[in-house]
């Protein structure tokens, strides 16, 4: 266990009985959100930071669940005493979004009206619905106004949505490697991922839990495609180059991975498909594709941000081609034009979109320098 971490943490479950109406029109009668907290909430409840997770993320952002855990939470590089999101100053809340597959109500939960898993019938959730559910969690925890809401990638989209939907409920919004909407190329990659899942015979029209199959191959393929978009060309070149797999016994059939990058992608795909739910993947990619921060203002980003009253930090990474620095610049320019306080840095990093999860010195310096102004 790495001692540079918040240590042993455990998840909590909040139950909500007041129905939540989704933007698609459907209503979820009762639901649960699983979350973790790090640090102490002060008496004024003014030092809380909400972490919004990305596509395949969850509530376990920092620390370890047990001393046997090999890996800490997914954002342990940024959350700890002395790290940018300093848990000696802040009370950090991280949850699994609705529709997720790590404990919050989602497609693997039981649909009370059928007694069966929701499966493909879980309501199509949008980013706005996640934010509404997060606002309920804030009420539940007694937090009227977040000191900051922070997210990378799809998480950054949730943070921005908060700034427009609940402007009085956050003081700072930190948007990392995100965009105001997806490009056609982004959607195209998500569509390949979805087709991979949908065309797996084990998918059974989404009822795989009921019939006892799993679209393992499809989900693995989906992850492989996604994973390529998280890395940069340079990152792949540095890590794998054209190195071949060690060959024993001259087995070089075309089905056997021959290059190290193939083997790596297969490993990532297999790992992911053993822990993630295919219906959740479909839901999350759809929410991502449909996200458009400016939809409520006729496509006018400047008009949209005029409704925000918090301060913003926007960060991008030089080799990120999934949500490129140009997408972050659009956010910054709209904020400047809307005369909203904004800081921006483009971090030089080889690692592509994944850089937002990695301990890149300048990234952590800028992040820490900004958060030092956030009053508790």
């Amino acid at each position, binding site marked *: 266990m790495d001692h540079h971490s918040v240590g042993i943490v455990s998840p909590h479950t909040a139950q909500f009985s007041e129905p939540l109406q989704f933007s698609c029109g459907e209503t979820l009668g009762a639901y649960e959100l699983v979350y973790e907290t790090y640090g102490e909430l002060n008496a004024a409840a003014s030092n809380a930071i909400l972490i919004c997770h990305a596509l395949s993320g969850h509530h376990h952002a920092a620390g370890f669940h047990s001393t046997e855990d090999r890996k800490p939470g997914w954002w342990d590089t940024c959350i700890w005493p002395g790290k940018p999101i300093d848990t000696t100053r802040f009370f950090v809340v991280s949850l699994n979004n609705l529709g997720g597959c790590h404990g919050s109500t989602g497609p693997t939960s039981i649909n009370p009206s059928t007694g069966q898993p929701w499966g493909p019938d879980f309501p199509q959730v949008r980013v706005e619905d996640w934010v509404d559910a997060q606002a309920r969690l804030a009420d539940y925890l007694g937090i009227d106004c977040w000191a900051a809401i922070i997210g990378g990638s799809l998480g950054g989209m949730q943070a921005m949505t908060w700034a427009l939907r609940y402007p009085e409920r956050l003081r700072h919004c930190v948007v990392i490697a995100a965009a105001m909407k997806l490009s056609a190329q982004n959607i195209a990659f998500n569509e390949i991922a979805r087709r991979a899942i949908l065309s797996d015979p084990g998918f059974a029209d989404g009822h795989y839990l009921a019939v006892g199959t799993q679209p393992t191959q499809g989900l693995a393929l989906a992850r492989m495609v996604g994973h390529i978009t998280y890395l940069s060309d340079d990152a792949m070149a540095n890590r794998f180059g054209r190195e071949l797999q060690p060959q024993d016994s001259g087995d070089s059939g075309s089905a056997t991975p021959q290059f190290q990058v193939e083997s790596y992608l297969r490993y990532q795909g297999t790992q992911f498909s053993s822990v993630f739910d295919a219906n959740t993947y479909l839901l999350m990619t759809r929410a991502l594709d449909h996200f458009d921060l400016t939809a409520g203002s006729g496509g006018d980003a400047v008009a949209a941000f005029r409704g925000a009253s918090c301060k913003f930090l926007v960060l991008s990474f030089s080799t990120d081609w999934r949500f490129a620095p140009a997408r972050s610049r659009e956010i*910054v320019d709209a904020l*400047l*034009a809307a*005369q909203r306080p*904004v*800081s*921006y*840095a483009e971090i030089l990093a080889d690692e592509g979109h994944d850089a937002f999860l990695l301990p890149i010195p300048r990234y952590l310096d*800028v992040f820490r320098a900004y958060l*030092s102004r956030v009053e508790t």
Partner: protein
Amino acid sequence: MRQDLTHILRWIKPGARVLDLGCADGEFLALLREQRKAVVTGIEIDPDAITAALARGLDVVEQDLDGGLANLPDQSFDTVVMAHALQAVHYPDQVLDEMLRVGREGIVTFPNFGQWRCRLHLATRGRMPVSRFMPYSWYDTPNIHFCTVRDFESLCRQRGIRILGRDMIGTETGGARLARRWPNLFATTAIYHISR
């Protein structure tokens, strides 16, 4: 605090929206915020300077001035300041135009290359001046567009830029009076308050 920066303060109205082009570590913006209650934003390209300015609690946007200011709307700031950066950009004339498009007023400071020491250095040694104020060799200097007080005022005339006020900084020993009287010969730093 650099002398030219304290001179600028009096031209900034209380509560003004101020943009600083090339804000470095934000020392001046922090002063403006404190003494003028100004709403300040900095533009900077140097990574360490950006971090330092962020740590002061300032809003800083990473942006290359040589890429222009097209992302900023017309007249969106009361004052746009550019201290000791005019000589380091690729197109000083265009940057001045852009400053006065984005801001109602501009404040520019630059080292005066017409100062007698520069002239003497060039005249007697036949080498590009290297001094405490301009400590770079010609081949690795960020300062690629040196000008004199007269050069600057001539450019303002050509471009229809009004000079609302000017101030000059001379050498420590009695240089202030000389610099105001004969700026092109004695000013080490020129400070201009401009508008359209």
